[in-house]
């Protein structure tokens, strides 16, 4: 009986915990009649990736078959060179970026508890392989759209740690002059389009940025515009209409966008399995006519391989891709979350799969770097983060004059006052003391 499957099983076993191989090879969580789990273990490991060459994709596009993509990664690994997926230089860049993300967030926690920053602060610990694996492949002109868990996406995209920290301190030297805060990081220079605090709302914005790329190429005849957009969001967000609406539009118009799902299994206190009828998010890609890929989001090299493929497709004008990265957050939902709900065993399991340790081991085992090389990076990043804190701490708080400055791009939007002049011409507007 299909009715039997859900509540009871989820309640007693909220997550298929299995120390050796979670989320897979397990007693099927679902009614086998509903989902053929034997051949498709829930949220399987990377062997279950779905990736495909583009020609394959086109063939399958309308056939309704789930596009198989994963084997590309596997084949590449086994055939070409059995070992090295990256050069030393690439490896060091990835390592540094992940260390930066981790160290920065750890520092945020400290600063939060010391009362240097306020509000809801969502840290990214544990998920670094996703940000690094994707964003480090981008050009500056490419766009990134993030959520409220956005510090590390900003850092990966090149926004200086100083500016991000200063923003968190609410200082005028912050990347948004202290007007955005933790959940609203922006950088026009680095094409970071936000920082969106409401679930799902960034996805349409990202779709619009991808539309702009297509428009530039096809309408404005800027032939060299091959910019792509990455939209990052969580598993919980995949139950929001904007996700589905934008998958549809992006596939419809073949927009250069990659939908990157950071499936960390939880939406605050809502388990993905309790919220989602078919928890294999990547399968929703083919339903909309785009490849859906599942990747081990704790493995930066695997993420990077998949990202390369997806970004390449987008750049070549072959359309969007949905990538589900299986990951985990090492801290509570936000710094205000006591994180009492998640099973300690589940946490321990993922802690053992720390993406930074994994990359470190890979590099050392493959002689891409020595312990000393990596230590040097650790040290450098410590200094960067220390410097960011110092910079933020010493930076001035915004002046009152800043209050009304960016309400309107054209301040005429404040209107005409009783004296017939535009109100923004009133010195009180420049001083920030006007009532608006």
């Amino acid at each position, binding site marked *: 009986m299909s009715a039997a499957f859900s509540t009871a099983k989820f309640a007693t076993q909220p997550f298929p915990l299995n120390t050796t191989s979670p989320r897979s090879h397990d007693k099927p969580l679902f009614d086998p009649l509903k989902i053929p789990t034997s051949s498709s273990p829930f949220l399987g490991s990377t062997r279950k990736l779905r990736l495909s060459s583009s020609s394959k994709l086109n063939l399958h596009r309308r056939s309704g078959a789930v596009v198989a993509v994963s084997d590309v990664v596997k084949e590449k690994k086994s055939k070409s060179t059995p070992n090295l997926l990256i050069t030393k230089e690439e490896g060091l860049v990835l390592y540094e970026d992940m260390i930066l993300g981790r160290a920065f967030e750890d520092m945020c926690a400290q600063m939060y508890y010391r009362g240097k920053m306020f509000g809801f602060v969502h840290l990214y610990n544990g998920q670094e392989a996703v940000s690094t694996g994707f964003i480090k492949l981008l050009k500056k002109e490419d766009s990134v*759209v993030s959520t409220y868990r956005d510090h590390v996406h900003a850092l990966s995209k090149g926004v200086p740690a100083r500016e991000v920290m200063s923003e968190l301190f609410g200082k005028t030297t912050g990347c948004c002059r202290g007007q955005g805060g933790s959940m609203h990081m922006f950088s026009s220079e680095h094409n970071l389009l936000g920082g969106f605090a409401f679930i799902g709302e960034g*996805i349409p914005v990202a779709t619009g*940025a991808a539309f702009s790329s297509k428009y530039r190429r096809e309408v404005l005849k800027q032939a060299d515009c091959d910019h792509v957009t990455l939209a990052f969001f969580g598993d919980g967000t995949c139950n929001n209409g904007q996700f589905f609406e934008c998958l549809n539009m992006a596939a419809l118009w073949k927009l250069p966008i990659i939908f990157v799902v950071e499936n960390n299994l939880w939406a605050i206190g809502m388990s993905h399995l309790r919220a989602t009828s078919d928890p294999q998010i990547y399968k929703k890609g083919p339903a909309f006519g785009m490849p859906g890929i599942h990747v081990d989001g704790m493995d930066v090299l695997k993420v990077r391989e998949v990202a390369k493929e997806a970004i390449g497709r987008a750049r070549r004008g072959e359309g969007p891709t949905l990538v589900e990265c299986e990951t985990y957050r090492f801290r509570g939902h936000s710094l205000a979350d006591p994180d009492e709900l998640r099973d300690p065993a589940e946490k321990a399991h993922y802690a053992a799969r720390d993406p930074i340790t994994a990359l470190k081991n890979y590099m050392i085992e493959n002689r891409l770097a020595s312990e000393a090389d990596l230590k040097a990076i650790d040290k450098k990043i410590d200094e960067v983060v220390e410097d960011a804190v110092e910079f933020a701490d010493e930076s001035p708080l915004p002046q009152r004059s800043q209050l009304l*400055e960016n309400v*309107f791009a054209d301040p005429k*939007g404040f209107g005409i006052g009783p004296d017939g002049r535009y109100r923004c011409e009133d010195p009180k507007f420049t001083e920030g003391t006007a009532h608006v």
Partner: protein
Amino acid sequence: MAAIFQGVGAAAALSSSPSNSFDTKKLLCSPRRSFSARKGASFVVVRSDGSVNFDLNHKGRRAQQLITNAVATKADSSAAASSSKPGHELLLFEALREGLEEEMERDATVCVMGEDVGHYGGSYKVTRGLAEKFGDLRVLDTPIAENSFTGMGIGAAMTGLRPVVEGMNMGFLLLAFNQISNNCGMLHYTSGGQFKIPIVIRGPGGVGRQLGAEHSQRLESYFQSIPGIQMVACSTPYNAKGLMKAAIRSENPVILFEHVLLYNLKERIPDEDYICNLEEAEMVRPGEHVTILTYSRMRYHVMQAAKTLVNKGYDPEVIDIRSLKPFDLYTIGNSVKKTHRVLIVEECMRTGGIGASLTAAITENFHDYLDAPIICLSSQDVPTPYAGPLEEWTVVQPAQIVTAVEQLCQ
């Protein structure tokens, strides 16, 4: 058919509309409305009467100031004389289209997105023919996904385009409220001024002819407290075109309200390029005794009432506030200082509506000049009923306006 628009006094406009057939389908309703015969013929060509004095108050403070009623000079009151005059005559929806088309020609980053804006030409034909001319990408037919295509417009605006997003009916944009509020309104600010959102969100709204509650909404009351957006309402072909063009050129997000019952108003407008000032009110009829502030369709109910009032010996000043956010406190203030009496006539809801905000603004700024409490005539706080008489009692009627002025001027 002539009965369809009688309420706004534009009956004849419809029959001369080239788009006759579709409009009839869209807007057709029973021709039995009670006051059709009474008013049907009185405003064959709807113009914004008598505003030649408009400049007096403004002392050239705004360079791009335009005479907002260029064709509606006093000498022009005979409708027959039109063909020999300069300019060209068109319907309001065509004026919107013309403005849009000119801006699309002028600037290749201007694009349109929305439901049925392309091949179908828009539910009220504002974008008719534009897809053929500019291509499917510049006039993008979107799936029925209001919050996502509105959000997409915002993302496009952040990255260099100037999208005009059409709500098939303004009410549908309730689904896009999050995008309009959080992103249109706030994102320029939260980004510390780094990203601009030069978007126009526009579409038909207001109480039509027995369209039922959901299709008769006035979203301006909901949108007005969103920081960082501007809102304008058009009411004549002249200002429809001018506001459309100004909204597209603005660096700010602008919501342009159109009214389903005004699309077929006819007016002669200049051939030359012009825009209207987004922040300025429009003097419709200068007068001495009372200031009547109104906008959108209610402008025509006010003008009907004004005729009666004039016959009764009153000299009302009628101002179409046009900018619903922010208010043009200069034009409004000058009028209050002259008449000392204010009547607000709106189609918006009584509670939390534009009139309520306007009342507050006038009290705050010009209290000392008032000789009587402000009267605000709004729609009833009732879901707009379907039945004709009930619907009529929901929105303000000219007779109520006459009564209110008489009361104010006692």
